[in-house]
């Protein structure tokens, strides 16, 4: 693999200390991207495993799904919280929207790997084409997430009557609409807190990814990589983008399915 992507052809006669050697047969940039991603895996894992820990410390909702009401006494059922679709107000469509988002992100990962494959063949037209699709997928995903957050924050029409400690340390009983970091109509306060932090941190990664994708798309289009002699940058940004997809797979399972 690295034989395709190496910038400098290394002469076998040069020896170990002659310079130009690649440890682990991967270029510097690719190696550092892998180690960055490893550290990022730990960060996300810490977030997601904390989610599991807090989740198991609350009782699960028991009873038929049709009778579900939000409460800070038990953890909500995800398919009854995330059941809204844009333009279809009041329609109960459990997990449909987040399913579409997952599909978009996986699809953009596929177009990314096709761009990397085109990069290996030095095919500028194909790289530009697939980078553009990937970029489009990334922007669409971010827009979906913005809508999802907006809906989550504003909440349902009915809201939920909750007794909770507000930000002034007073115990109040009132109808709560939507979610913030103090209280939310769906479940315990930590439910919304974890949702904001984990999907927010993931969305932040996607945002950076979109910037990098645009950079890569632009540079490929104007021929920077042709002049440079290799398309390794596509591969490195591809690694990052796949990682974002990888994290989403876990976020999807832990937040929306379990």
């Amino acid at each position, binding site marked *: 693999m690295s034989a395709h992507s190496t910038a400098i052809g290394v002469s076998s006669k040069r020896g170990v200390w002659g310079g130009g050697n690649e440890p682990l047969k991967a270029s510097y940039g690719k190696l550092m991207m892998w180690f960055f991603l490893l550290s990022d895996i730990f960060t996300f894992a810490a977030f997601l*495993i904390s989610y599991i820990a807090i989740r*198991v410390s609350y009782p*699960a909702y028991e009873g038929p799904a049709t009778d579900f009401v939000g409460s800070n006494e038990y953890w909500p059922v995800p398919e009854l919280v995330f059941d809204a679709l844009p333009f279809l107000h009041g329609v109960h469509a459990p997990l449909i929207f987040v*399913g579409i988002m997952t599909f978009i992100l996986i699809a953009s990962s*596929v177009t990314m790997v096709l761009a990397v494959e085109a990069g290996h063949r030095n095919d500028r037209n194909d790289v530009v084409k697939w980078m553009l699709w990937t970029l489009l997928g990334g922007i669409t995903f971010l827009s979906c997430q913005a809508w999802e957050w907006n809906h989550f924050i504003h909440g349902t029409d009915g809201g939920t009557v909750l007794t909770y400690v507000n930000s002034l340390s007073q115990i109040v009983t009132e109808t709560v609409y939507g979610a913030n970091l103090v209280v939310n109509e769906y479940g315990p306060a930590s439910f919304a807190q974890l949702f904001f932090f984990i999907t927010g941190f993931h969305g932040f990664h996607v945002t950076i990814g979109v910037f990098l994708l645009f950079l890569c798309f632009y540079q490929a289009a104007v021929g920077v990589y042709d002049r440079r002699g290799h398309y390794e940058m596509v591969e490195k940004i591809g690694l990052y983008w*796949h990682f974002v997809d990888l994290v989403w*797979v876990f976020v999807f399972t832990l937040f929306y399915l379990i």
Partner: protein
Amino acid sequence: MEIQENKSTLVVEKRDEQKIKKIWKTAFILLAITVVEFIMAFTMDRGIILYFLFIALTIWKAKYIMMEFMHLGDEVKPLFYSIIVPLIFLLWLVIALVKEGSDIFLMRW
């Protein structure tokens, strides 16, 4: 005024249809697993068996993304293991925090 030349000496290789086919196949598998997860979410009862299946399927998907899309399987073995082996630490974190969480549950409720 002269236009900057963008011609390169790079030789554009032909598409390797076999490789591209494999990418689409992987994409199809990922999609199929996600659809299966979806169906399971609505047809099976919530409980430890379902959660276990979800996590197993997720790790299976993660394997495909890392091995096929990120080409980790094509890297040399030392690089492969220096990425995979540190993840063992996470196993302990899962065990420790799930224990912690269930103890908090017992104390609180």
